[in-house]
């Protein structure tokens, strides 16, 4: 399931590293080294995802993004930036990007986000039936009722949101930062293990009394829901 990804990044080393990693994941990567070339290639509209550095020569990332959205190019865009303040992140998201990742980042974090964005595009293209099931776990987003092997699980509202997000990214790694941003909508970096605590509570509710684990910890990256 290789996808076409456009990588707009002026730093050669970073670009080579990312292109290699994404290539190993089976994606085909095209590269542009400045904003103008990036915009030109992106307006083709044949990409599944655009990874866009924020600080670029000739035309900066945010301008490229705004130009793309103005030209009705709806390809998902992941913005990479060394600007890490909350205000910068909000600005990046508000200018039409689908996700925002602060440099430096681990490749696992980038990959997790790339996969989530590609998956979202898929889901948008063919709307699946509204029930989500992962192994013997069944989630009904309308009634917010969750059953495992037919047994109803009692989840708090936030636990439900957490589980739904995991389920929509079934089989893919989800990082702590992604959870904080997507489930809680906070864009700062908490100093404590707050996400881990919530995930382990959810895990207890999902797995207590069942043999098969569902919510896996992926070392050095995050978590993954898989049957």
């Amino acid at each position, binding site marked *: 399931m290789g996808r076409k990804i456009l990588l707009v990044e002026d730093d050669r080393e970073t670009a080579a590293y990312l292109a290699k990693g994404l290539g190993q994941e089976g994606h085909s990567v095209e590269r542009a080294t400045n904003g103008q070339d990036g915009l030109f290639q992106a307006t083709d509209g044949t990409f599944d995802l655009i990874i866009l550095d924020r600080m670029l020569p000739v035309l900066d990332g945010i301008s490229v993004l705004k130009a793309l959205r103005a030209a009705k190019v709806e390809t998902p865009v992941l913005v990479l930036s060394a600007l890490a303040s909350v*205000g*910068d992140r*909000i600005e990046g998201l508000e200018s039409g990007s689908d996700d925002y990742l602060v440099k430096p980042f681990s490749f696992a974090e980038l990959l997790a986000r790339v996969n989530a964005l590609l998956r979202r595009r898929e889901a948008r293209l063919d709307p699946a039936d509204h029930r989500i099931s992962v192994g013997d776990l069944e989630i009904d987003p309308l009634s917010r009722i969750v059953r495992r092997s037919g047994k109803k699980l009692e989840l708090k509202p936030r636990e439900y949101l957490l589980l739904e997000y995991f389920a929509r990214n079934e089989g893919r790694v989800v990082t702590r930062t992604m959870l904080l941003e997507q489930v809680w909508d*906070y864009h*700062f*970096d908490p100093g404590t293990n707050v996400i881990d605590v919530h995930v382990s509570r959810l895990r207890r509710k999902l797995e207590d009394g069942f043999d098969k684990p569902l919510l896996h910890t992926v070392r050095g990256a995050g978590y993954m829901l898989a049957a």
Partner: protein
Amino acid sequence: MPTTIRIALLAGVLALLSNLVVLGFIQWRTHDEAVSAQRRQVVEQGAVLADIYRTGGMRALGDGVEDTLAYGDPQTAVGIFNASGREITGNLAAMPRTKGPIRTGYQSALIRFQQQTAPREAAIVAMRLPRGEWLISGRTVGYGLALRDTLERSLLIALLGAVLLGLAGGVIIAQYVGRRVGRIVAVTDRISATDLTRRIPLSGSSDAFDRLSRQINEMLDRISALMEELRMVTDSIAHDLRSPVSRLQSAAHAAAETSDATERDQQLTSVVRQADSLMRILTTVLEISRSEALTSRSQFAWFDVGELGAELSEMYEPVAEEAGTILKFDRPGSPAELFGHRQLIAQAISNLIENAVRYAGQGGEILVRVGRHSGQLEIAVADHGPGIPAERREEALRRFGRLDSSRSEEGAGLGLALATAIAHLHDGKLRLDDNRPGLLATLDLPISRRSAGA
């Protein structure tokens, strides 16, 4: 063209223009004056003759005409004509010619004196006597003409003088301005050559130049302060990053040297953790500077702080429980709306809660409360931990002003400083009080002082 010459020319042109205006005004006024003076004289002379006729009849009038002419004024024109237009007495050769038929009262006409051939312009008063005679009395135009000529000539000379004076004045002004600006330029030149301590001397007259100089001086003060702060921040970052960087270094070395795979894995995990903590410190320092520079005010919006407090309490409640404490949230009765940066306020509150969780200790209780007080929002986080002694609270709010060196490992020394910076961004402040026992940290935020402007 050098500025001096331009200013001098400008002054000269202005002098010329203003003098032309004055000259035109004088011309217009004196002409007017002359005309009305003449009219007065003519009407008066006519009235005198009419009076004479009324009291003494035709005989007296004839004498009156003789008397009037006896003064010998060359401008005076008097005459009595019979109904057929022949002169009975006076100094006129014929009836005056007027536009249209002659009528009673004041009018202008062309007259001809006896023994003269050229007609002259005159203002006259005509009066019809009972037996059809015409009494004509008037004056030729031209009185004061000579005077006006002299006046005009002297005004022209004055004009020339004024323009010359204007040019000279312009040169003087230009030199003065050049000198004052030169002094400012000299100082800014020296500042460009990196002597930021210099200031432009003020003349004390609080004129435009002084205002400009003061403005520049204030700007320099601000720049100096910012530079000083920057230097301080850079110094403290360099100082405070030294220990985490060296910890990272030694962890990396240890990982490189060990041959046991499991142990190396552990060491590498530690390397990653140390690097993460370094990144967190850097991000927080950046966030503090951003908040202090007030750049994120453009992202302000209205939101309910009560709801945010509830959400964050719910988020941290399990964390507190793991740490052996209970976190409680005291919800305000009504929505507590604030015009501010939701994400940053969330970060400030979570910093306070994290701080409390870290220090509350086993069995303690943490209370998060959102309240309103006369245009102010209060967000309070209270714990029953060891607290901070009164004399050290100020230090605790300062950037890198941590109280115990072990805290720096997690970058927690910056948590309170960031909360303070975020409070400042919202024109508020962070207060630390004694919770008897423990720490009571309160964010005081004015609800919307900036809402109109932002």
